[in-house]
Every structure is written in structure tokens, then in C-alpha cells.
């Protein structure tokens, strides 16, 4: 159950410059990989390409190969890919179906389209709503929720699909700390159940919690790729426009003052 990108480049239609260059990425099952980078470094583009939306629905030109469990997906139509790879957009408004009048129907929309038995659709929908603690929103109109609530509803819709591969573009951008924690827990549970997940985030604290490996993009290229502690603990990270996680930043500030960071004790959790 591995998603593999080899030498992938991508240029939007009409763009003078490519937005991605020579990206290699292997996303094995039961793994969370974090994607960091400054604004406009290519994170969203990589999410679109890894999920197959670019170029299929976005246009533009792609190079290199994308394989799902060893099979080249180049000729696969979007609907076939969508059964295997879920994507969560940065703006939850984009994600909502716009046809569901209640949150329950919104979250059930995806599994219903998989032609699952009714009982299973209902069970998956409540599971997803419970996981993000939004069961009390079930009867509300999804179009009339706050941005944070919409982001949780959109994420619940993805969870209900029980995807084997999931690409999330800043899934907590609009969330308060409590919502962010719920999404982090949900990502962890999905991965524990065997899913492979790519998460693009500015919040490196979240990546430090959920990811085992982190890639950093700069100008459309992968400029860092390694174990989470190594990449996010690198003092040169800030030069790439990425704020280090709180713990790494605190250690760096203490070390810079000539104080032994051992006094801080464990900064985990």
C-alpha cells in the first residue's frame, strides 16, 4: 500500500515556471509524512499532484511517475484514483459537497457514493462525527457553520471514507488548539489502522506530534527529507521560512544564551 512519486515535476497551465521540480516521495502504509515549507514553496501543488487532481482536473503538465502499490497511475481516470486517495483542501468551503443540507448527510456523502450498505454508511458517519466531537452538529446546515467547524466537518467526511492514502493540505489552519488536537488524534488513529498520510502544515508543532518523517519544500524542490526530529530540529530551518516547533525553538534559544539545554528536562507532550 505505497504511494511513490519519482522525479515528479509540475507546471500549471500558463505558468512561466514549474511549481514542482524533481520530487521523490515514498509514502508507505501506516505512516504519516509531514510537508513543511514557506508559503508558495509548492506544498499545495504537491498535495494536488500526489492526490492526482493535478493535472487531471487542474490542467497543467506533469513529469515523472506516480505509482500506487507499484502500478503507474498515469492513465487512471480521477474516479478510480479517488477511491484510493483522499484529499483534504486548505479551505474547507471548497471541500463541502454543497448538496447536503445537514452535517450528517455531508459526512455520509462520500461513503454513500461508494455504494456501501446503508448500515455501514450510518456507522461510519457517526464514527467520524464522534472522532472529531461534532456529533451535536449532525442536524446543522454545513454551509452555515464557522470556518473551524466546517474544517472539522470536511475532515470527518474524509475519515468516513476510511481511505488507505490521504493527502491533507493544512487541515488545522482554521482550528483552535482543541480542534487541532482532535485532528492530530484522528490522523494518528487512521495511520495506526494502516493508512498512509501526507500532511502539509505551517504548524510544525502538529507535524512534530504526528509525523515520523518530514520533507521541506523550497522553490518547488525538496530541500530537506529525513526523520522528524532531525528535520524540525535543524537550526537552519528558519532560513527556509519554516518556524521550528516550540520545543526546538526553545532549545535553540537556551543554547544560544550559552546555557545547557539539559536544564529544560523533557519537552515532549
Amino acid at each position, binding site marked *: 500500500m505505497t504511494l511513490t512519486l519519482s522525479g515528479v515535476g509540475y507546471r500549471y497551465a500558463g505558468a512561466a515556471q514549474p511549481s514542482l521540480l524533481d520530487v521523490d516521495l515514498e509514502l508507505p502504509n501506516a505512516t504519516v509524512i509531514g510537508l513543511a515549507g514557506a508559503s508558495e514553496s509548492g506544498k499545495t501543488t504537491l498535495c494536488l499532484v500526489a492526490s492526482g487532481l493535478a493535472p487531471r482536473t487542474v490542467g497543467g503538465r506533469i513529469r515523472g511517475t506516480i505509482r500506487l502499490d507499484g502500478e503507474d497511475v498515469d492513465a487512471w481516470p480521477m474516479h478510480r484514483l479517488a477511491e484510493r486517495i483522499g484529499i483534504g483542501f486548505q479551505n474547507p468551503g471548497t471541500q463541502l459537497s454543497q448538496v447536503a443540507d445537514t452535517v450528517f448527510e455531508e459526512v455520509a456523502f462520500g461513503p454513500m457514493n461508494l455504494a456501501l450498505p446503508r448500515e455501514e454508511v450510518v456507522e461510519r458517519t457517526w464514527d467520524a462525527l464522534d472522532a472529531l466531537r461534532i456529533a451535536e452538529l449532525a442536524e446543522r446546515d454545513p454551509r452555515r457553520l464557522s470556518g473551524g*467547524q466546517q474544517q472539522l466537518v470536511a475532515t470527518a467526511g474524509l475519515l468516513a471514507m476510511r481511505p488507505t492514502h490521504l493527502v491533507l493540505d*493544512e487541515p488545522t489552519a482554521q482550528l483552535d*488548539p482543541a480542534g487541532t488536537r482532535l485532528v492530530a488524534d484522528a490522523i494518528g488513529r487512521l495511520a495506526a489502522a494502516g493508512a498512509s498520510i501526507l500532511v502539509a502544515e505551517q504548524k510544525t508543532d502538529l507535524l512534530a506530534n504526528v509525523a515520523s518523517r518530514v520533507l521541506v519544500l523550497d522553490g518547488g524542490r525538496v530541500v530537506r527529507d529525513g526523520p522528524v526530529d532531525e528535520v524540525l530540529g535543524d537550526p537552519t530551518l528558519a532560513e527556509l521560512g519554516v518556524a521550528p516547533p516550540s520545543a526546538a525553538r526553545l532549545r535553540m534559544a537556551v543554547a544560544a544564551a550559552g546555557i545547557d539545554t539539559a536544564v529544560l*528536562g523533557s519537552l515532549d507532550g
Partner: protein
Amino acid sequence: MAEILVTGLVHVYREGAVRALDGVDLRIAAGERLALVGQNGSGKTTLVRHLNGLLRPTEGRVTIDGTDAGSMTVAQLAAKVGLVFQDPDRQVFSGSVRSEVEFGPRNLGGRGPELATAVNAALEATGLAGEQRTNPYDLGQSRRKLLALASVLAMRTPVLVLDEPTTGQDARGVDRVRAVVDAVAGEGRTVVAISHDMRFVAETFERVVVMRAGRVVLDGTPADVFAAGNRDVLGSTFLEPPLPAIVGARLGLGATPTDEALVAALETRPSGR
């Protein structure tokens, strides 16, 4: 410059029995940098929408420099309080970055060199000086958000209200927002910002107001609000102090809401290094 006085403010949304604000009292002095924090749904956005007249109180009142906001026209309020929305796509509409930023100050009567100066300064502060002819929708989401900030900044209102200014911003974007807050407050103007980012709050603001279920539950400096004794109250709103505050409390170093404060406390503690 303007003083804001909020007294017994209650807001009940028409469609429901939801008391979004349940009796808020707040005095915000001119030139203050105030962060408003709390869970989604705690009433932060409802509160700031009363400051520029987007919402009118169900009970209580808001005065700006002694004048009841309810008796001021939208135009009068717009000249006093600039509000930057969380989602830039709710306010961006022009065909170019420059005309977007010109729109507000022009409506307030700005013309000629004075207008140009205000617009240029706002573009410079948000790092958009090189994008004046760009269509706003050709900017990425994060820079479009900085554009929304620039367009309100250019109005040079005595009060600037920012709703989640750092969401979707990278490290450089957060630094820009912080520099804008410092510069505006440095001119004696007031900045009120809603934020979920406690690190940004502790490093940028001198006063933190914590809301829960439509009420103010904590109000003080970052050192006060993020002090060990308030951990339970913060926890009741699902907020956590920034990491240096937690570590400082654990090491018995007192209130250390920022990395800087923690390092200073470590340097001066009796046992030395």
C-alpha cells in the same frame, strides 16, 4: 486616538437562543495591543464585530471616545475602526493589488500624495510593494491575507482589529504581522487581535483577554494570564499556555510566557548556569 469602552455587552443571534456574548465589560486604552483568545464559538468574533458596527448590541453598549457606537453611522465607524476579516476572500474584490489597497482610504476622502503615501506604506509593511499590478487572485492565499491587512492598514484608523491574522502564514508572514502590530501600536493606535496562536500572542501583545461562553474569564499581561495558577481556567477553554510558560512553571522560574523571558529567568537564577 481612541478609547474603547464595552459595558454589559450582550448579543443574542436572532435565529437562536444562543447568547454569543453574555455580559462583557472591557476598557481598551488608546495605543494598547490586546489579544483576544478563546475556543471557536467563545464570542471573540461577535465581540469585535460590535467595535465597527457590523453588529449592534442586544443589551449593553460600546462607546468609542465617549460616543455610543450605536449612534454612529457605518461611515463614521469605518473611519475609527478598521476590521480585517479572517478569510481575505470576504473582503478582496479589486482587479489589482494597488486598487484594492486604495479603495478604503479613498472612501475616507484620501486623495493625491497623502493617499499615495498611505497606500505605499501599507504595501511596504506587508511586503506587497512589488505586486501592485498583480490581480489579487493571482496571489497565494497567505499573501492575499496580507493584502487584506494592507487594505485596512492604509485607512490609518485609530483602531485596527485583526481576526486570526497569522493563520496560513509562514514564519516570515508571522514576523510581518508582528512588525505591523508593533508599528501601529508605536504610533499610538490600538490593535485588537483574535488569535489561536498562543506563541504569537505572548510575543506580540501586552494584554491578553480570555473568553469562554460569551464572557471574559481572564484579563491581564501575558505573564499574568499564562501563569501557572491560571492553567485550570485556560484548560477550561481548551487553551494551553505557550511552552516556555509551562517549562518556567515546572522549573519554578515564575512567569515566563516567551522563550526570551525563560532564557532571562534561567540566566538570573541563583544557581547560575
